[in-house]
Every structure is written in structure tokens, then in C-alpha cells.
């Protein structure tokens, strides 16, 4: 025959095991018959549910990623803001020492505090842009004489300007809410004055999201307070507020005809020759001031003046 049939394989199975195997096979076949018509439905239902779950899981993952990103951003902002505040605090601390040194004759440096009264105005943006260009900071004494409308642009909310001053690093001062120093106005009594101050404090805090002014400028100056000055100053001390007038009046409020850019520049530049620490009065509504400031800043910078915003611990602020 010549064929290689291979070796026979023998399988021995116990009778009871054989019966068990037979039962199992029958069950498997029976289950297959039962499942076959139902499989498609279960299959579809499973994958539909799975797809819904996967979509939900993807949304959760996206939300988690967004959460992580926002948390990180928030941490970065907090760190950055803390560093900024720390640096700002350092500047004021050093500025206080510098003032002392200047007054003691220990330093040749000079300080100029530019103060801008009666804002906010839409023109305030011009000042902000200008100061940003020269990298200097000033002090804006704000009031709310026109309610929540900018006096030179009624359709713009005055409240919307407040955060801008803070964002550019300027100091916001309190120029009272009404700026009404006429008869029966803020100088009628210390109580009337403080009412106007407190109202302006609340407005500033609300508009800036927490910034609280520490320095008050009397509308028209402290000389306008008359016999109420002492009482008002006592009240200001009780409230923890300082107050300040000015050392140089730019003259920009002397009337449209008189307060020309040339006059403004001359007033400031001439007065600066004798000053080591000066507080200059300007008004936000004055276009001539905006036009004069570049030349004034460059001159004062050349004369060695350092431009700083006011701070409560400054020697120039009365307490």
C-alpha cells in the first residue's frame, strides 16, 4: 500500500462525562437558537448606549481640561498680581524714603506729582494714552457731578472709566461726589462734606471692583472750607483719609481765553525751577492741558524730575 496512515489517536471518555458533555452541547445549541434572533437588537442597543456614554465622557474630559487650564490661568494671574502689588508697595515705600532724603538734602533727585481733577471725562482717555506713552503715573481726583454719564460724552457710562485709571497704575483720589461747593453745598458742614466724600468712596469702590481712595482733594482747595475746615479735617482723620492741595497751579482752569497751552506750560516750567517735590494741578476737561503735557513732561524729565502717583504716606499728604 505504501501509505503512511499516521498514528491512531485514542480518546477514552467516561460514560458520565460523556453524558455531561452531551448536556452541555445541547445547552449551548439551545442558547444559540434563543440568542440568534435577539442578538442584533442587543448589539445595537449596546453600541448606541456606548456612543452616548463616550460622548458624555468626551464632554467631561473637555470640561476637566478647561478646568485645569482655567485653574492654571487663575494661579498665574494671582501670582502676577501679587508681584505687581508687591512692586507697587515697594515703590511707595522707597518714595517715602526718597521724599525724606530730598527734604533732608541727602538726595538730588526731584519728584513731580501730576494731579488731574474733576474727571472722569472722555478726554481722560487722552491723558491715559499720553502717560502710558511716557511711562509715567499720575493721580486723578474723580467726582460724579454728572451722575453716571461722562460730562463730555453722555452716552458713555462714567463708571466704565474708573477701572481704566486703575489698570494703568494711576492713583484715584476722592474729589467728593457732588463737587458742589456753592451755598448749602459740601462746605455747609463737616457732615455734608463727609456725606459727599463717603458717597464718592462707595461709587469708586463699586465701579472699580474694590479700589478705595485714601486721599481727598477739597473741591476748590482747602481754602474753600472756611470755618468748617477743622471739623472736616477731624472727620477725615477719623475716616482714615488724607487730604492734599497743590503746590503749582497750571492755570488750565483760568478760562478758555486765558488758559492757553503756552500759559499752562509757562506756569509749570517756571515754577518747577524752584521745586524739589511738586504737586501740579491740572483738570481733566482741559484740552489745552492735554496739548501742553508732552512738552511739560519732557522738560521736567530733563530737569531730573521723577513722576510718581500720590500715596497716603507721602509727606505731601496731610493726615
Amino acid at each position, binding site marked *: 500500500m505504501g501509505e503512511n*496512515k499516521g498514528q491512531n489517536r485514542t*480518546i477514552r471518555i467516561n*460514560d458520565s462525562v460523556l453524558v455531561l458533555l452531551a448536556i452541555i452541547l445541547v445547552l449551548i*445549541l439551545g442558547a444559540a437558537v434563543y440568542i440568534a434572533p435577539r442578538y442584533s437588537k442587543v448589539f445595537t442597543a449596546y453600541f448606541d448606549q456606548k456612543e452616548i456614554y463616550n460622548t458624555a465622557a468626551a464632554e467631561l474630559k473637555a470640561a476637566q481640561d478647561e478646568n485645569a487650564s*482655567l485653574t492654571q490661568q487663575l494661579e498665574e494671574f494671582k501670582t502676577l498680581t501679587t508681584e*505687581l502689588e508687591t512692586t507697587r508697595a515697594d515703590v511707595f515705600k522707597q518714595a517715602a524714603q526718597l521724599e525724606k532724603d530730598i527734604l533732608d538734602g541727602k538726595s538730588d533727585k526731584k519728584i513731580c506729582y501730576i494731579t488731574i481733577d474733576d474727571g472722569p471725562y472722555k478726554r481722560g482717555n487722552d491723558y491715559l494714552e499720553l502717560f502710558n506713552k511716557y511711562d509715567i503715573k499720575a493721580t486723578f481726583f474723580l467726582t460724579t457731578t454728572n451722575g453716571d454719564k461722562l460730562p463730555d460724552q453722555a452716552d458713555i457710562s462714567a463708571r466704565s472709566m474708573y477701572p481704566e485709571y486703575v489698570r494703568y497704575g494711576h492713583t484715584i483720589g476722592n474729589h467728593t461726589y457732588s463737587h458742589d461747593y456753592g451755598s448749602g453745598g459740601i462746605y455747609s458742614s463737616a457732615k455734608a462734606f463727609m456725606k459727599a466724600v463717603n458717597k464718592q468712596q462707595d461709587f469708586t469702590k463699586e465701579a472699580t471692583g474694590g479700589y478705595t481712595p485714601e486721599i481727598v482733594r477739597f473741591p476748590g482747595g482747602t481754602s474753600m472750607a472756611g470755618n468748617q475746615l477743622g471739623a472736616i479735617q477731624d472727620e477725615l482723620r477719623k475716616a482714615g483719609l488724607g487730604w492734599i492741595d497743590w503746590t503749582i497751579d497750571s492755570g488750565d482752569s483760568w478760562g478758555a481765553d486765558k488758559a492757553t497751552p503756552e500759559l499752562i506750560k509757562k506756569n509749570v516750567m517756571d515754577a518747577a525751577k524752584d521745586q524739589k517735590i511738586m504737586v501740579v494741578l491740572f483738570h481733566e476737561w482741559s484740552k489745552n492741558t492735554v496739548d501742553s503735557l508732552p512738552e511739560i513732561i519732557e522738560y521736567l524729565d530733563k530737569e531730573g524730575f521723577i513722576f*510718581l502717583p500720590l500715596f497716603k504716606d507721602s509727606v505731601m499728604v496731610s493726615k
Partner: protein
Amino acid sequence: MEDKKDNRKTARHTWIGDPEESQALSRDTGTVRPVQTDENTILLQRTRVVEKPKKPYSGFITDEELKDSDIIRLEDRRTSMIDEKDISQTRIYKPFVDEQDEKPVVAAPRGPKTRTFVLSDDGKARRLIALLALFLLLVLFEASYFVMMKATDKIPAQTKEVNTQTVELQEENSKLASEVEGYGDKDQITEMKESWERTRDKIAPSE
């Protein structure tokens, strides 16, 4: 005696017979022949071919039984009626000797009955493997059905849990986003910080 070729056993029955029976009788179940004779007795022996026995016969004939002719006759009658194919026991005959080493016959222990399957060629082996693979696939098919069914019941609850977490996170993200937005522009803040640093440098004491 076992004939291994056709799987048969033979049994011999010996009894005391009479002269008439001494004639060899050809029976369907075997042949009879005298095995011993003396003056008064004839021992006849019949040899029968029987099928493979299923269990051993536990009894045995003693000398005393042989002497009992009634018993022998009954025995003969009984065995003559047995069908070859239905034999289920075999007789163990004691030799007619004085010494007997009688040992009780103990039935061999019955092991489990097994069936033997022979895979005589590769084709049969492959078909068996294919059949087993088919049944394995069926089992997997059925298992997948039950797994999917169970999973389908659980998934909606899991989805609901995930959706709840997502909603909570989205609310938190909304608050975080507002907080982040409140800080303003990061570049501007950085620029402002640097501006303050430059101012600090200006007012720093001269060395």
C-alpha cells in the same frame, strides 16, 4: 478457557451419567464425552462454548455436590436451557483432587465504564478540532450577548453620573472664567508690573 480469537469461553460440566447417556450427544451447546469410568459410574463431561462472561460465578461445585445426583441433574437441566448469547456467568470447576486450595472467588472490582474513540486518521482529528472550534465560537457568541446585555443595563447609570460631573465642572469653569476675566489682560498686567519695576529703579538710592 478463553478463546481470544473470537472472544469466547468454553465451559465444562461433569456429571455422573448412565450408560445411555454415555453415547456422545451432539448438542447445540457443546459435546458430551465420558471422561472417567469405573465399574459402576460413568462421568460424563460436556463442553460448551459460551460467550464472554460478564461476571464470574462465585459458586463452585464441591465433591459433596457432585455426589448428589439430584443436584447434578438439576444443574444439567438448567445449563441446557441457557442460550449461548445470554450466558452471564461462568463456572469455575474444581478439579477432582483431594487437596483443594479453596479460595473464595472475589469478583473483580468494576471500574468505570469508558468508551473509546479512535481517531484513525488526520481528517477525523481535524474535523473534531473544527467542531470544537465551532462550539467555542458559539460559546463566545453567547457570552458576548450576555456581556453586552449586562453592560447595556449599567451604561445609562454611568452616563448619568458622568453628565452630573460634567455639569458641576462646567459651573465651576464658568466661575473660574469670570474670575480670570476680572483680572484683565495678562500682557497688560505684566507690562504694568515692569513699569512699576522701572519706576522703582528710578527712585532707588544712587550708589
